[in-house]
């Protein structure tokens, strides 16, 4: 752990710069803050104090056994760089972070180039890494631990997964994570907030991820519980889960850039094999997902690779496509374990939600089965996401026929205008029959979507300044 106070150095550099009108890379990297690098020893039991500007140079870990405290108002800036030169803050397995901001003094994590006063455009993405929290909770991928996407597999501190589902990695509150998601090479990017094997003892509330190049928040297994999360203008999916995520979520808001981004929710069950246990069965209530609009051709939520999960009391808005559930066919009309089977088994529900300007607004258009094109009973030429002849034959042999059952209606979903927009997420018409909360962790509220009558994201986020 090196903490170099480079202020004197920067004065010297400034003096030099007057002498030479040099145009080197050092000019853009000339830091104005406490530069933190990590030679392997991590941050130690440090406290970053109110008023501090911390500059992350490279991957900085909170090692196993260390505890990092970040006080309200601290600004953390990530240096530019890709690959292993990327800058990111990573809480390793066994490490703890206590980053508790306030609505008045949020903790801001942003790019080095950001002067917090418009020097970086609102939608500029990928200028630094992101925040990664790794824990000891269980995954369904074998061998039970994985190297987190974006960190080389040779770095042991990048490995997550274990068997303590109540693991506590600390507290994250009032944090705004901006302009991250740099390229790590070989097709990887860092998510705004990555939670790998994080346990339910960890507190995560009031987090904004804005303009991240990859996903907003991505879960890899574990049971973290997140409340009041705002993801806006990200380059890929807003919320993504893999490897058997079983946590809780309430008051999640996704706002997509009309020009960029993929799904609001990309939900996978297992990786290899996809049917590994424990199954992914999180519960997400009171979400508001605002999509890119009909022209962009993107999708609201995909459940695949045997993903389960429960969405309830939520609002889904402005998207070309609705929700699709993966159906895998096999020989002799035998059912296989897939997301469609998760519905039959009660592990996947989408209940009491409001849809508006999504797909064609019909029950069969909003909820679709999707099947790979070479599935035995599909038409074999294109990938299917409608009720094709082949799929009908296939489903007829099985007792439950997804389309005949009209799950959309049976689950109490409705198509109506809740009066919500990207600029004002407070609904005017979002009441109705409510699904009951499964756990006391959830707040019992009488409205659908992430917002009641007040905008909890107002003031401390970049989205709602």
């Amino acid at each position, binding site marked *: 752990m090196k903490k170099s106070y480079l202020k004197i150095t920067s004065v010297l550099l400034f003096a030099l710069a007057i002498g030479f009108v040099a*145009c080197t*890379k050092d*000019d*853009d990297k000339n830091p104005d803050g406490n530069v933190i690098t990590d*030679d392997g020893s991590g941050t130690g039991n440090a406290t970053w104090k109110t008023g501090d500007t911390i500059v992350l140079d490279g991957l900085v870990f909170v090692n196993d056994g260390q505890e990092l405290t970040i006080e309200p108002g601290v600004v953390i800036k990530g240096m*530019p*760089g*890709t*690959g*292993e*030169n990327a800058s990111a803050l990573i809480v390793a397995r066994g490490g703890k972070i206590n980053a508790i901001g306030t609505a008045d003094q949020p903790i801001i994590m942003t790019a080095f*180039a950001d002067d917090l006063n418009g*020097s970086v*455009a*609102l*939608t*500029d993405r*990928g*200028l630094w890494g992101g925040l990664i929290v790794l824990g000891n909770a269980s995954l369904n*991928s*074998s*061998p039970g631990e*994985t*190297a*987190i996407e974006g960190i*080389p*597999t*040779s770095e042991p501190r990048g*490995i997550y997964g274990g068997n303590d589902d109540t693991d506590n990695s600390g507290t994250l509150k009032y944090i705004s994570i901006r302009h991250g998601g740099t*390229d790590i*090479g*070989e*097709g*990887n*990017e860092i998510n705004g907030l990555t939670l790998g094997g994080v346990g339910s003892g960890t507190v995560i509330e009031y987090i904004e991820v804005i303009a991240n*190049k990859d996903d907003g928040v991505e879960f890899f297994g574990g049971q973290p519980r997140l409340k009041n999360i705002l993801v806006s203008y990200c380059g*890929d999916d807003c919320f993504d889960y893999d490897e058997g995520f079983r946590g809780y979520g309430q008051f999640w808001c996704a706002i997509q850039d009309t*020009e*960029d981004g*993929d799904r609001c929710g990309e939900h996978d069950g297992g*990786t*290899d*094999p*996809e049917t590994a246990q424990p199954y992914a069965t999180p519960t997400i209530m009171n979400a508001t997902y605002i999509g890119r609009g009909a022209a*962009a*051709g*993107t999708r609201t939520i995909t459940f695949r690779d045997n993903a389960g999960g429960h969405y309830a009391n939520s609002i889904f808005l402005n998207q070309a496509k609705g929700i699709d559930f993966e159906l*895998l066919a*096999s*020989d002799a009309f*035998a059912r*296989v374990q*897939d997301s469609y089977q998760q519905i039959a088994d009660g592990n996947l529900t989408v209940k009491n939600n409001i849809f508006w300007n999504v797909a064609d607004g019909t029950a069969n258009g909003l909820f679709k089965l999707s099947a*790979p*094109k*070479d599935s*035995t009973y599909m038409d074999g030429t*294109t*990938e299917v*996401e409608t009720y094709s002849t082949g799929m009908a034959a296939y489903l007829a042999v099985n007792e439950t026929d997804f389309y005949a059952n009209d799950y959309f209606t049976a689950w109490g979903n409705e198509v109506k205008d809740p009066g919500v927009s990207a600029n004002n997420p407070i609904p005017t018409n979002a009441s109705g029959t409510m699904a009951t909360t499964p756990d006391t962790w959830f707040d019992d509220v009488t409205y659908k979507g992430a917002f009641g009558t007040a905008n909890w994201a107002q003031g401390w986020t970049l989205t709602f300044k």
Partner: protein
Amino acid sequence: MKKIFILIHAILFSSLLFAGEGIIRGKVIDKATGEELIGATIYLEGTTIGTTTDFDGNFSLPAPEGKHTIICSFISYETIKITDIEVKPDEVSVLNFQMGTASLGLEEVTVQAKEIRRTENALLVMQKKSATVVDGISAQQMSRMGDSDAASSLKRVTGVSVEGGKYVYVRGLSDRYSKTLLNGAQIPGLDPNKNTVQMDLFPSNLIENMVVYKTFSPDLPGDFTGGLVNIVTKDFPERYTFQFSTSVGFNPQANLNKDFLTYKGGKLDWLGVDDGTRDIPVNVEDIPYYPSQKDKLDDLTRSFNKTMEPETKASFLDHSHSISVGNQFDFRGKPLGFVAGLTYSRGFNYYDDGQKNREMLNSENATSLNNQQRFSDKLGEEEVLLGAMVNTSYKLSNNNKIGLTLVRNQSGASRARTLYGTRNSDEIGMYFETRTLQYIQRAFSSAQLRGEHHFPSFHDLEIQWLSSFTLSQQDEPDLRFFSNSYYPSNEGAAQYQIEQSKYDLPTRYYRDMLETNLDNKVDFTLPFDAFGAPSKFKFGANYVYKYRQFNDKRIVYWFQFAGSTYDGSVSDFLSDENIGQSADAYINDERYGIYIQDGTDDKNSYTANQSVLGSYAMIDMPVFEKLRVITGLRFEATNMLVESKDTRKAKGELNNQDLLPAINLTYSLTDKMNVRAAYTKTLARPSFREKSPFASFDFAGGETWVGNPELDRTLIDNYDLRWEYFMQPGEILSISAFYKSFFQPIEVVDNPIAVNPEITWRNVDKASVKGFEAEVRKDLDFIPYLENFRIGANYTWVKSEVSIDPQELASMGTGADDTRVMMGQAPYIFNGYLGYSNDSIGLSANLGYNLTGEKLAVVVKGVTPDIFEQPFASLDFTLSKKFGKYISVKFAAKNLMNESRDELYIYGGKSYTYKSYSTGRKFSLGFSYLIK
């Protein structure tokens, strides 16, 4: 052109003979042991013209024009008399003698000169007398088979298969366990990802023979297990030889094809060198990070060329040309021999039927695999090979000889590839398209000085020494990847997109590698008599040093606007109007256009060095009349250090001292029949690439290969048993069995904790390989009407078993087998040929067949089955006809069966393609002018 030939002739064939005189040259060897006989007397019957042989058994005898009878005699050997030798003025006649030990009643053998015309004799005699298990191929055999380079010849040797036309696999063991020497000196591989030498770099007309050692003896380097190939270049040609060959080749799939995939290269591509067109136009350190210095960033981005996709352009015919000369003449009264050669070839490969898929087993009890990726694959490749070699030898006296070899090889391969298809993880209706443009330029320069000294006055001591220096380079300038998505069913702008979160952004890599290699060696041989039979004691030392620098730079194209500016045309997308602040979308400082960023990953650059100090002592002697034992010990001290430019990465170190014992027993059942048994210990070291944390992939979206600094060397115990029968000169029948036990073998493994498919190398617990091989080469002259035919066949059967890395095994599901076959190990290899040659009409033909069994090609993550490369058969035919004394015309047809090369997953009785393509049939017509 003709004038040049005449000029060359005039210069080279400056005869030092008296008018009306010719020369008879040849070699005298012991028929039983193959040993050269030193001091044998050669004279013309009825004259006083005579000479004695030197320490190589060679003689050179000037003789007057006319027909002579020549006599060769040596104490305790039968005298051989050869009649009707025709000596022409200014010409050299060649005569070799094989002397048998004198027995009662048979003291003189008389042979007519024209009867001596066997070809593979010398090599087979060497094979017979060798202390270890060897196989080989001679220059004559190579030219009869129509082989153009070392790689195509080697696959005709028992148990040898050649991978990708380049890399040698002996007994199916991968290139890791093979080694290549040039005239006994170690030479580095050109490809940093492979442990061995690319055999297609050696043109066959400069090669005297190639010998494959299959068992180790202490005087050989210890790091080969499958086989060691020694390429021996021509030394003292018996007389002036000159060859000019030219040929054109046509593959209906690859040549004169209007759809051939290529891209704009440099002006010197035809010489195998990039002219600077592909150099990086900027200094990566100067690239500002967005969003600072936008003007500069825009300028630097514009300085790159816009070529990032292949174009279609008709390909030309394959063609190759070579010229070589050789002679020996007296220089300051001593014989100086030389051969020099220049070769040039340019070839094209193309396929458009390729498939590159990925399948997955979704659950352990599923009955079929689910497709994850389905791409069609197209590839155009143009390769230029340029080789120059000079080999000179100077005989200081009958007991001293020195030689100098200079080799320079240059190759340039330009590849353009597209992959197009669907991926399961993508949006339904999305097609993924990716393009790769690649140029690999390799060069290899070697200087080798060597000497042989014989001290008759000091117990007949023989000293051989060698010092060789090699510089090799591999540059991969401007390796380009460009990927996009395509939605055929969308309309307008949404049809094409570049989605940064789904695959790599457009990327350019710049890689270069420089390696120096030094090999110094000295061997002492002391002959002595044990139980009345010739024996020898041999000892020596060897120091090999290698130093490599490898650099990798990466430039990535970014943009802050949405990808919809891309309309399917790569060059339009990269046009100046879309760059940075010029982009239409760039308003109020938002949605900045295309810009480059330095994406260099320091971990991908490294320096490495390795020194291996070897020393040995061995003895070769009979223990009783028919049993010969060769035994000894070699010591090798290895020091390897691989340092990544990213100093946070662990250094790859190797410090080993190994004792490698060997015992080889040869029991002569009869004069023509041996039984051999051997126990040897050998080792295998990781390559620099494998020990560096360097990560690379073939195409965007393909598996990533990552090195492992913790790799250790492998130790191998080898057991060999062989029975061989040399029926007639030039004929052999042999059967061998072998067993190899590996400690800590290095295997290619899947890294189960990686999110994306990542392949790495690890030392696994152990492995074993057992098998047998059989070879027959036989003239059919005992069958009436088939006098001119000969057949040859060899077959190798191998069973291998290697333990699976425990971490990987844990991810493979319950009940998974804890062993599998070795990577790249074929369970069987079959080679067969049928040859016809009729010297009286100058016609020869050959039909060759090769079949290699299925091999483990890719280790797949988790429960999904591994991928096997399917058996591949090839059938080649050559026909050549002589016209007059010097000219011959040759027709060759290769890969006549044109089987597709398939790599498959096999699950539940069904096969699923992972990779498939076919290379096409190739026909060539060649002309050659040869003076021999």
